[in-house]
């Protein structure tokens, strides 16, 4: 990805809108008692489009902004989302994305990794309260929601960041046949 000031502004706006949408909408709706988590899917999509560094920086900023707006401890979400964004970017750098199913599947897998990561960070820092087995269901459902959210999200972000994408195949325009003498 070629990050010009204009693209940087777009990336910042995407992260900001994503965090606001998560905190004001997705966290406040519950399907089967579980709220979707858009943030890992957002970071994965940015990593897949921009590479490892874009993914890592976007993950760090997304985690920092979300935690700062909610009085949570700073750093935990940043660390987890940084890792997720970096992994997604690394995948893009090592492998070709041939199938359209691949981005949503990666959103599913890496959202599960992110949710387990959030839990691991908290457990490392100490959780005194008992932990319900429903946490597992929450993680799996969040992964499934990420699959369905990741699909349109990846396409939308690809459209928004198209000018910066290096390997984005251009749509071939069919050349009109030239009629001599007209």
């Amino acid at each position, binding site marked *: 990805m070629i990050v010009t000031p204009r693209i940087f502004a777009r990336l910042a706006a995407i992260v900001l809108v994503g965090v*606001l*949408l*998560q*905190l*004001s*909408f*997705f*966290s*406040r*709706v*519950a*399907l*089967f*008692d579980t*709220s979707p*988590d*858009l*943030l890992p899917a957002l970071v994965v999509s940015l990593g897949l489009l921009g590479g*490892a*560094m874009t993914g*890592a*920086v976007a993950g*760090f900023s997304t*985690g*920092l*902004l*979300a*935690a*700062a*707006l*909610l*009085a*949570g*401890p*700073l*750093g*935990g*979400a*940043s*660390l987890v989302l*940084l890792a997720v964004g*970096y992994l997604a970017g690394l995948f893009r750098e090592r492998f070709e994305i041939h199938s359209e199913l691949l981005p949503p599947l990666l959103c599913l897998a890496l959202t599960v990794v992110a*949710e387990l990561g*959030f*839990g691991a*960070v*908290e457990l490392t*820092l100490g*959780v*005194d*309260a*008992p*932990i*319900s*087995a*429903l*946490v597992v269901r*929450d993680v799996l459902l969040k992964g499934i929601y990420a699959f369905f959210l990741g699909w349109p999200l990846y396409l939308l972000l690809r459209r928004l960041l198209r000018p910066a994408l290096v390997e984005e195949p251009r749509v071939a325009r069919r050349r009109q046949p030239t009629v001599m003498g007209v």
Partner: protein
Amino acid sequence: MYRKQVRRRRAVLTLLVLSSFLLLTITYGQSSGGLQDGLSTVFSPLQTVADRALKPARDLVGWFDQTFEARGENDRLRDELEETRTQAVAGQEALQENAQLRKLVGLDRGPVLAASAYEPVTGRVIARSPTVWHSAVTIDVGRGDGARVDDPVIAGEGLVGQVASVQPSSSQVTLITDHASAVSAKVLPSGAQGVVRPEVGNPEDLVLDFIASARKIGVGQTVVTAGWRARDLASLFPAGLPIGEVTRASIVEQEASQQVHLRPYADLANLDLVQVLTGGSR
């Protein structure tokens, strides 16, 4: 050129990881201070706008979810109604008896009246944490409305949590389902006291610990805040705020205390309007 790029990439990554660890070490267990204050002040108007604009969409998703649950809920509510009718009759008798006893003892402030020292300020939830590991919401009541750190927060149905940090026009509230939350509480009518803790990942279940196993606790009994006071120290919550209803009580063999499970009265998963009890004497 390539090696330089790799070195730069490694440096940025190391910097980000170290920053994350540093932030975690500095801010764990406390508010993130200036950075959070600044960001919340800047973004709270945006959050308020987003909250209002997205309400119809949230309601639509909520409608789908509630339709799935409505069937089971209907049967449960019928059972609860019958039970509540019986309790209401018993409650009327208890109220009469209470009034007579008050006159006799000369008490001028009962546990519920003590809450009147607080001035409730109504606010709206504008944001919510995305993970089950942190149960926190942001509300549009701030320092300018009289909110202070540690102020109790209630919804129509019962206790919701306490204010964790305050900005000029918004506050962050730690819910009673957050793993760091602990509320001293008592079971009515027995008066058995314990500490209400959450069960991480299950907002429908709270655990009341440290109840003496000799105390008999029944399903359906009400749990309220204990609101203790000892010399200069006082509970953060006033006495008598309803927390939840006992759903299960289990005595562990060879243990002096029992664990009581309760369902919170407040619908913590779908909070919209809340009240901050400001101006309490602490």
